[in-house]
């Protein structure tokens, strides 16, 4: 009996490892593009060109969230028709090849418009593949897991999105550190894309040895699989009402909490606080590294006390603490709250010939300020000048960048504040795979759970940076107008206004989830 149990456990461990590794690689592939977006835009989407700008926006928005639900529908249908194993094998191959090929596309200056078009197409394929991967992996692991440990085992799949982001940042930092800036900018940025093909190769070999999910295999042998999963999922009122409930009562709130804790935090640190890119990446990496084990903690806890309330309590705490947390982040990281040591202020000016246009020179002024706590602020002003024009005469000729390098204490304060947000992420995200799998019957499970997941994450979550930035910018502009008019400023802290988007959506999701989700069904063989 013990030998049987040990063999079963070993089998389950290898199933989780193989599924999680593949999903982790898919997330890594997806995030590499986002993490290297700045350098990619200079290589493929030249500034000042309207068509290239349009293609760039399409690559960011369309693949980032619009295509993912379509991938969920397409591959979800396949997964419910032919099986989980082959479908998520296909998504892995598509993702790996697309990522590798992005690293091989010649730059815009070599092949012209074909470059951004190819990158866009490959990015769309990435989005489609990601849309199909998660539902397959979560379903596959859940259908192998014993009922009393399903939350724990599927939570390994839940760690992969965060771990994929973590590894993408890590690979970029290592690659960047192993060469000089010029080499990285010229060809080094391609290395993280090329690495993907090795990881995918290994993962495909492992996945090919895996068996089909026993629950699906049984349903197929008994002729109980669906002939039209899309129609049965969304055309059947009984199933469709659960798809809507999963979306508005769980994945919508989960999506915004996830994006706030990881991406909005990073964007806030970089754009609002102007923290140096490498320090910001390290900060997020530490917080993610410390927070990731909690996916497993809350996954396991959901087996004991239920999934619904862990997710909803995570949302509720997030709703009430986002504004204080971001206010504290601003206090810790903003140079407005620090005391400058005027004696340490330095200004360095250099003027060199422009490598791309010999008729111009590039004048670079770097102002360095040091604050009493050790924080360093650098403002770099780059002007392109000709023989006739010795002072830049318009904003298009001047590039200003700001970078803050925080002192150790402020750095760790920010790490802890992001870590708290990652804990909210682990509460809402840890148990959700098991929750979604248990919500839908085997014959339409892949399709039915994938769509709400990718709408919640891809669309409600994916839009968060754009909408939150819009709200914060609007508040800042309103303050500027009031300041000019000499009236009272309408917003005390305009940088917090963007948070109303995740707060509102998570609040609606909390009420719907609390009132309408039953959460008592733990069967997956129905």
């Amino acid at each position: 009996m013990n030998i049987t149990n040990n063999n079963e456990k070993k089998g389950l461990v290898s199933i989780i490892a193989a599924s999680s590794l593949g999903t982790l690689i898919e997330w890594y592939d997806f995030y590499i593009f986002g993490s290297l977006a700045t350098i990619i835009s200079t290589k493929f989407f030249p500034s000042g060109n309207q068509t290239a700008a349009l293609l760039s926006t399409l690559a960011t928005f369309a693949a980032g969230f619009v295509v993912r639900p379509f991938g969920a529908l397409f591959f979800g249908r396949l997964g419910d028709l032919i099986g989980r194993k082959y479908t998520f094998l296909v998504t892995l191959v598509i993702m790996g090849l697309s990522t590798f090929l992005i690293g091989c596309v010649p730059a815009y200056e070599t092949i012209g418009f074909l470059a951004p078009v190819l990158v866009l197409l490959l990015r769309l394929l990435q989005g489609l593949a990601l849309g199909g991967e998660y539902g397959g992996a979560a379903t596959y692991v859940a259908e192998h897991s014993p009922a009393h440990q399903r939350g724990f085992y599927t939570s390994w799949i839940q760690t992969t999105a965060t771990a994929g982001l973590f590894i993408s940042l890590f690979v970029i930092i290592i690659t960047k550190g192993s060469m000089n800036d010029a080499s990285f900018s010229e060809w080094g940025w391609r290395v993280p894309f090329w690495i993907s093909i090795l990881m995918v190769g290994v993962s495909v070999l492992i996945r090919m040895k895996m068996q089909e999910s026993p629950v699906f295999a049984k349903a197929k042998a008994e002729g109980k699989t669906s002939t039209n999963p899309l129609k049965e999922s969304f055309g059947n009122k009984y199933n469709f009402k659960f798809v809507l409930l999963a979306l508005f009562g769980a994945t919508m709130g989960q999506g915004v909490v996830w994006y706030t804790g990881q991406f909005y935090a990073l964007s806030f640190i970089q754009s609002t606080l102007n923290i140096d890119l490498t320090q910001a990446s390290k900060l997020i990496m530490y917080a993610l590294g410390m927070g990731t084990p909690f996916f497993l903690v809350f996954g396991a806890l959901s087996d004991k006390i239920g999934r619904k309330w862990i997710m909803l309590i995570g949302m509720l705490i997030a709703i009430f603490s986002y504004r204080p947390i971001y206010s504290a982040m601003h206090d810790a990281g903003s140079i407005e709250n620090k005391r400058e040591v005027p004696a340490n202020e330095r200004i360095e000016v250099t003027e060199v010939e422009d490598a791309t246009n010999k008729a111009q020179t590039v004048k670079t002024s770097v102002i360095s300020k040091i604050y009493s706590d050790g924080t360093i602020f650098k403002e770099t002003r780059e002007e392109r000048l000709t023989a006739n024009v010795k002072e830049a005469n318009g904003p298009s000729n001047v590039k200003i960048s700001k970078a803050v390098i925080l002192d150790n204490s402020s750095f760790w304060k920010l790490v802890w504040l992001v870590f708290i947000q990652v804990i909210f992420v682990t509460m809402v995200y840890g148990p959700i795979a098991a929750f979604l799998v248990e919500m839908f019957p085997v014959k339409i499970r892949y399709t039915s759970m994938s769509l709400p997941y990718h709408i919640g994450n891809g669309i409600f979550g994916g839009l968060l940076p754009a909408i939150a930035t819009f709200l914060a910018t609007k508040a800042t502009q309103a303050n500027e107008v009031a300041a000019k008019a000499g009236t009272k400023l309408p917003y005390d802290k305009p940088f917090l206004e963007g948070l109303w988007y995740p707060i509102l959506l998570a609040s609606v999701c909390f009420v719907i989830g609390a009132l309408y989700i039953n959460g008592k069904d733990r069967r997956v063989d129905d």
Partner: protein
Amino acid sequence: MNLLRRILGIVWIALGIAGGYYLIINQAIPKFNSDKSDDLIPAIIYAFILTPIIVGGLLIFGAYALKGEYDQSK
């Protein structure tokens, strides 16, 4: 509790309409009218992807709730 679930169906319907109004009037139309080419794709996404999901989804969800489809005894 089932009565509350049904009554709140009206709130979800109203929220769907309000969300649709906000997205079209405050987000999509200004972006369609903007001179910046970067705004076109977000405008299309707000108008033709996000709005139908929020309006359509919440209207149907609200209608189901109102009819008692989510009553826990069912």
